[in-house]
């Protein structure tokens, strides 16, 4: 969908997620906390789609950036009295970016399984550090008492999650604008080229390695912001933001929704987190089983993810429209 032959104009279907989010805000006020969590995970999934879906970088370590962002905001808010929400976000973004560029510069020289293991190693190391540095992170008990000021001095984070929801929605909207812009740009087209045929990109003179390091860093920054949002909304950080598990969950979400199609990152977290919320209430001990079944069904019957199911329908629609346009001439 990106590239030199695609139409960059926003289609009406692309406004649906935003309409749905606003409708959700008014229709289900008792679920706004879950809603905010979903929005954060969509932002996180978008950042993963950028490197996995577009650039073709496989990773099991994306939680490293999410977790670092979460802990940066948490430590600042709980230990150092930096309670301004935007300062926390900026600091989290900067830390994640730093980690992204420094680790990316090393591991992006590798690929496939080696790369997968290295990404996993990095997030595992961070998890262990967070676990051991109890004086800073609270260790296994987590870091509570994270303070965040009202946004712009006006909107306090309320217990119903109203402020949190709108705040996360705005952050996600900005993130979406940025990612959408990027994937339709020459850079986005170039990333698709790297994913499709790296040897060919080398042969047209592209400095592939540097291009990957840059997008990896951008993606890490976004993931860091998503992590900081989670801390601000929960006023708490736990070890579950680091390591294999959140990375794996994120990957499952993106695969459920559809990889490399921008809106798969929207659909996946919605389905996953609602299913998790429902299943965890109904079957507290077996809820992962339900997620597993869902993943198997999608992988077996919908290889392009849930969004991929709509492809034939969308293609028919665009064919009908282009033939209508041809008739109109």
């Amino acid at each position, binding site marked *: 969908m*990106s*590239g*030199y*032959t*695609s*139409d*960059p104009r926003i289609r009406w279907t692309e406004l649906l997620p935003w309409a749905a989010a606003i409708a959700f805000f008014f229709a289900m006020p008792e679920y706004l906390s879950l809603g905010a969590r979903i929005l954060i995970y969509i932002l996180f999934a978008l950042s993963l789609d950028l490197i996995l879906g577009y650039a073709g970088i496989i990773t099991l370590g994306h939680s490293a950036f999410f977790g670092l962002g979460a802990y940066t905001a948490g430590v600042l808010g709980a230990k150092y009295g930096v309670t301004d929400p935007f300062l926390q976000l900026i600091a989290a973004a900067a830390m994640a970016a730093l980690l992204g560029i420094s680790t990316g510069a090393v591991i992006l020289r590798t690929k496939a399984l080696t790369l997968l293991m290295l990404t996993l190693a990095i997030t595992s190391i961070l998890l262990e550090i967070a676990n051991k540095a109890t004086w800073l992170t609270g260790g296994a008990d987590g870091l509570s008492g994270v303070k965040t000021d009202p946004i712009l001095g006006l909107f306090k984070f309320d217990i119903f999650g109203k402020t949190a929801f709108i705040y996360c929605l705005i952050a996600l909207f900005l993130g979406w604008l940025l990612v959408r*812009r*990027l994937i*339709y*740009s*020459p*850079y*986005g*087209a*170039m990333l*698709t*080229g790297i994913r*499709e*045929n790296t*040897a*060919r*990109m*080398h*042969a*047209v*003179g*592209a*400095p*592939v390695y540097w*291009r990957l390091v840059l997008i990896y860093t951008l993606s890490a920054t976004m993931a860091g912001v998503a992590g900081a949002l989670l801390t601000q909304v929960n006023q708490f950080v736990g070890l579950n933001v680091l390591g294999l598990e959140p990375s794996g969950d994120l990957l499952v979400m993106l695969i459920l929704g559809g990889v490399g199609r921008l809106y798969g990152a929207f659909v996946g977290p919605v389905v996953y987190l609602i299913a998790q919320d429902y299943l965890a209430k109904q079957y507290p001990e077996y809820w992962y089983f339900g997620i597993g079944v869902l993943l198997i069904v999608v992988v077996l019957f919908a290889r392009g993810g849930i969004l991929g199911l709509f492809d034939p329908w969308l293609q028919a629609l665009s064919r009908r429209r282009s033939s209508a346009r041809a008739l109109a001439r």
Partner: protein
Amino acid sequence: MAASALETQKLCKSFGALTVADNIDFRLEPGARHALIGPNGAGKTTFVNMLTGALAPSSGRILLGGEDITKVSQAARVRRGLGRTFQITTLFRKLPVLDNVALGIAERDGVARRMWKPASRHAAIIDEAMALLGTLGLTADARIKVEDLPYGRQRLVEIAIALGLKPKVLLLDEPAAGVPSQDSGHVLDVLASLPADIAILIIEHDMDLVFRFARRITVLVQGQVLVEGTPEQIAADRRVRDVYLGEATHA
């Protein structure tokens, strides 16, 4: 002596005890139409891979336009004007033909790093790509995915990408490999119409194509240059007949 377009000096490559390039001195003049031939296992592919930078030589030097590029990376050689096509089609199969060419042009133009304006609004890139496709007779295929094209046309896309980089030197690695004989004429027409100022080195098994296209021929045997000359000299050379053409008639 004027600078050569591309030159190797005492180029060697060995894998352990096996020597696959043995002191190759080779000169490609500006605007040349030069062919590199040799029996299977003569080291043609190794030689080309060293020229493009895919493989590092064991010793010796490679000069592009008089400058030493022996240690220069593959991508940087491309940016300095060394283009190539692949023996085995190496394309973005799931992307339209236009994108295949535009991605290369965008790299050459420095547009590929841009992150804001949509790619499809970079009219200069798209116009140039369309003009190039026009010269190769691919205009109607511009929006078709490469994987949906017949193989002969895919070979042309391969050439189109290389030309989009405006190379000073172009290495054509078996451009007609696998093309059905009724289409290979079209490939030859395209090769004949390439800009005269590009120095071209063609590696090809199709002797008919080689003798119609090349003005000079180098014969490589067991990693060494056996002989170099005009097509007439090569055709008349008894050693070449023995090791190469003779063998070909047996095959």
